[in-house]
Structures are given as C-alpha cells and as structure tokens.
C-alpha cells in the first residue's frame, strides 16, 4: 500500500477531535464524505491532512451539505468499503433523514458526533440536543467522556458495526469543546495494533461486486415495511450488546483499558447516584469521591457508555440498592421530562428497586457544570434517600440565571 505508517509516542497530548482523526487514519478509512461544522470539523480536516501527507490512502469527498455528506457515505458504504464522517448540531439535524436510510440499509458507517446545542438561538458549544435527536435513528450510539475514550471507542465502533452479524451504523459521541477541543494525554495504539484490532473491511452485498448485482434502498409497501423495521429492531435489541461486550473484552486484552456498556463508579454501596453522559460523568465521579470523604454521603455515578441500544438490563443491575437517583439531562426537554429521566423511569417502574428519581436539566449551550452544582445535587439526592420520597420538584434546572426553574 502506498502510504506511510506514523510513529506515535506511547502517550500523545491530543484533543478529542484529533484523537478521533487519528483513529480514522489508523483503521484506514476508505472514504470520508464530509461537510464542516463547529466543533467537529477538525476530525475530517485531520483525515484530509493525513491523506495529503500520505499517511492514509482513501478518498475525501468534501461535499456541499451534511445531508450530502451522509448521502455520499451511504453510497460509498453500499459500494463496499470502510466509511466514516463527523458532524455536530445543525449538521446532524440536516443529516437526520439519511441517518434512518443508512441504518435501514444496514450500512456500517461510523459517524463521529461532537455534541453541540441546536439552534435557535444559535450556539456552537456542547450539549446533548443533537445526540438525543439521534435516539430513534437505528444507529448504535457510543458515548465518550474524554479524548482517550473518543479515540478508543472509534476502534470499538468500527469493529462492532462492521461485524456481519450486526451491520449497523454507529455514532461515537464526544462533548463539543469539553472533549473535542480539550487536550489530554491519550495512550496510543501503534498503527499495526489499531488496524489489526479492527481488521480488514469485509464487504457484504457490495455494489462494486460486479458479478453479483444488488438493489439497495427499495420501496416497501404496508405488507413488508413492518417486518423489515422489526428485523432491524430485533438485531439492535439482541445482537449488538454481545458484540460490544466481545469488542470491549478484546480491547481490554490489547490495551488494558476496560470499557463497560454501563460504567459504574462506586455504586456497590452507593445510597445515591447520578446518571449522566459525556464529560459530566467524570466530573461527577470526582465530586462523588469528595462527597464520600467530606460529607459522608455514599455517592456513586452511573455513566451511560452505550446510549443506543438502551442498556435496560445493565442499568437495572447498576441501580440495585440505590435509594435516590438523579437523571442529568444536558438537553432542553421542551415540554417533558428529560430523556434520561424517562428512560430510567421505564426501568424503575417494574423493578423491585424503589429509588426516588429526580431530573436535573443542566449545561445547555455549553454552560459549565461545576463541582459546586454537583455537590448540591448529591446533597438533594441524599435528602430524597433519607425521606424515601422526593424532597424537591421532580425536574430542576441548574446553572441557569434568574428565578429558580422547577416543575412537578
């Protein structure tokens, strides 16, 4: 192959975007079809630069919109090769139509989503509005909390998505700016290790197999549509988690880094816990330790590593014995409870666990989630646990200026 390998230090100081770009290089993505949008742009710029410098061999399609970006990815993926792109926010929203088409056609495209708020009003900073918009799109959604994970989860995502038993597209999420533009130490894989872990792309129903013509993207009437959608749902519900577990195990063997579908921090004896996504998980872990040391509150944290498929049983296991749970949603719920609250409520309602569940809306448009905020939350959860019922409104906005916002 006509490209050079890159010598990496054991630890590189990379931001989340560059870490993801390096992963795309190391797995030798064949086609990237992309459109720039803050804060995800550096990922595809990175691939383009690696291409320009001869560190990867492939095609970079710089198209005229995110809709076209995913359309190009779909065509390229159906043609039969490794495909990836990146986007955020409005770009993600513009892509939504094609997201459903990619998953419905069972094309293993990897989309790096650098989470960002949705306008209006316009905001380039990180919250989970775009991530939540992808919930029903039929994609696997991995969530990273720091640049190391943004790097690692790309390898996991390719391995799982491209598995012929799975054949579903996957998103790797990282928090806009808080991860994407924050440089931290990243333990690297060598180019050979990384490529070896994911393996060579194995085509399936590839359009470029000229001796076996295939038709992709058919029309189904009422007599077929339900069955096809049911099949896709079934595979998401039953086939994805075992493959992710397998990939996590293989990755741990290779790197020593252990990932879990649901990450639990100090939950074994926890009385109270928050459930969160993204960088907030780690900040919460630091605060939970401090709550234990300074306040004697048995605090724990549950981090959702795989947001779709929703890890119902894993969470049911994780919350055992916890008396008060706080669902931390970083997206404007716009007239409902937050998504994490609702999904957790769905787990609790038929379980023997009787945790008090409350909802915190925080961090919209990149608003800082401070340790002070989290301390308050843990204290409120402790009060709920002691009372055995909510002592606050069920939904509270934290970190917003003006009169307190709380509902129900």
């Amino acid at each position, binding site marked *: 192959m006509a490209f050079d390998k890159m010598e990496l230090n054991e630890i590189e100081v990379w931001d989340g975007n560059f870490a993801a770009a390096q992963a795309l290089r190391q797995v030798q993505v064949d086609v990237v079809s992309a459109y720039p949008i803050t804060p995800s742009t550096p990922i595809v710029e990175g691939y383009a630069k690696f291409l320009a410098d001869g560190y990867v061999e492939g095609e970079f399609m710089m198209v005229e919109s995110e809709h076209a970006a995913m359309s190009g990815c779909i065509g390229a993926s159906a043609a039969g090769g490794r495909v990836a792109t990146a986007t955020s926010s409005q770009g993600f929203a513009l892509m939504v139509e094609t997201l459903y088409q990619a998953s419905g056609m069972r094309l293993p495209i990897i989309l790096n989503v650098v989470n960002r708020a949705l306008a209006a009003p316009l905001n380039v900073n990180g919250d989970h509005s775009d991530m939540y918009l992808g919930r029903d799109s039929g994609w696997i959604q991995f969530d990273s909390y720091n640049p190391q994970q943004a790097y690692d989860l790309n390898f996991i995502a390719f391995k799982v998505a491209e598995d012929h038993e799975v054949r579903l597209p996957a998103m790797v999420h990282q928090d806009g700016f808080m991860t994407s533009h924050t440089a931290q130490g990243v333990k690297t894989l060598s180019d050979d290790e990384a490529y070896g872990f994911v393996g060579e792309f194995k085509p399936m*129903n590839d359009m470029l197999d000229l*001796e076996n013509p*295939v038709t992709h993207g058919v029309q189904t009437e009422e007599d077929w549509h339900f*069955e*096809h959608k049911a099949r896709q749902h079934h595979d998401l519900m039953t086939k994805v988690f075992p493959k992710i577990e397998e990939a996590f195990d293989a990755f741990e063997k290779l790197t020593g880094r252990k990932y879990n579908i649901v990450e639990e921090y100090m939950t074994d004896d926890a009385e109270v816990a928050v459930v969160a996504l993204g960088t907030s998980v780690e900040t919460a872990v630091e605060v939970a330790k401090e709550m234990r040391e300074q306040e004697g509150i048995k605090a724990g944290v549950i981090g959702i590593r795989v947001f779709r498929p929703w890890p119902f049983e894993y969470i049911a296991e994780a919350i055992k014995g916890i008396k008060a749970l706080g669902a931390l949603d970083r997206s404007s719920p716009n007239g409902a409870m937050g998504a994490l609250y609702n999904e957790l409520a769905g787990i609790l309602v038929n379980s023997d666990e009787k945790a008090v569940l409350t909802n915190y809306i925080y961090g919209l448009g990149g608003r800082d989630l401070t340790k002070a905020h989290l301390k308050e939350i843990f204290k409120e959860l402790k009060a709920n646990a002691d009372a055995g019922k909510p002592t606050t409104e069920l939904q509270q906005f934290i970190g917003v200026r003006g009169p307190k916002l709380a509902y129900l």
Partner: protein
Amino acid sequence: MADNTMGWDEFEIGAMLRSFDGPIKDIALTPQEERNYSPNNSFTASVADWRIEKPIFNKDYCIDCQFCWIYCPDVSIVSRDKKMLGVDYDHCKGCAICVEVCPTNPKSLLMFPEQEDEEAAIASWPEKEEKEK
C-alpha cells in the same frame, strides 16, 4: 423467494435484493434466456393482467427494422440476432407503442382484444393500405 407470508426473520437484512442467483459474468453480453434470474427479479413476474388489448406479431410483413424493440418500454419485444421473434406476453402491458412505430404496410404488429386467438388474428390480417395523396 420472499413472499408476503414470510415473517420478519426470514429474509435478508437491509431489504436488499439480488438480481441473480449466484454470480454472473458479462451480463451485458448474456441474453435473458441464459441468465440465472433470482426469484426477486421482476423478470420472473408478470404484468399480463394489466392488458386489455395485446399486440399480435405477423412475421410475414416484418422487415426487422427493430423500431418495436427499441421503443418498447417493457422489454417485451424479443429480438435475437437482429431478428424480431415475437412479443413477451409476461411483460407486455399493452401500450401499443410497438404498433404505432411499426413502419410496414400493412403493419406487422396490430392490437387485438386480449382473448383473441393468434392464428385467427393473423388469418384476418388487413391488406396493404393505399397511401392517400
């Protein structure tokens, strides 16, 4: 093949369809009768019931000009080795374009009621028309 009594677990993922059963080389040089069509290829289906009238071919007048072949929307004119052989009644929808574009006098293709007997039709074929000046 997939039929609509099948359950969700009985067909290929992604609603993907194959044109042929097994590999085929040089498709563009392989006539239809030599192809191993998949049951999901519409070649294996029929739209005969769409017709009210059908074109009947009378080879006595045919000059093998191939206008009917090129202008047939439904790949229903069977031509092999530059010779017009007849109409594929599984795929003909009865649009009558072939009849319209037939340049012979009398025409080599004419529309008849669907139930018309081919031999009888040919027996009753019209005479050459004198061109009006």
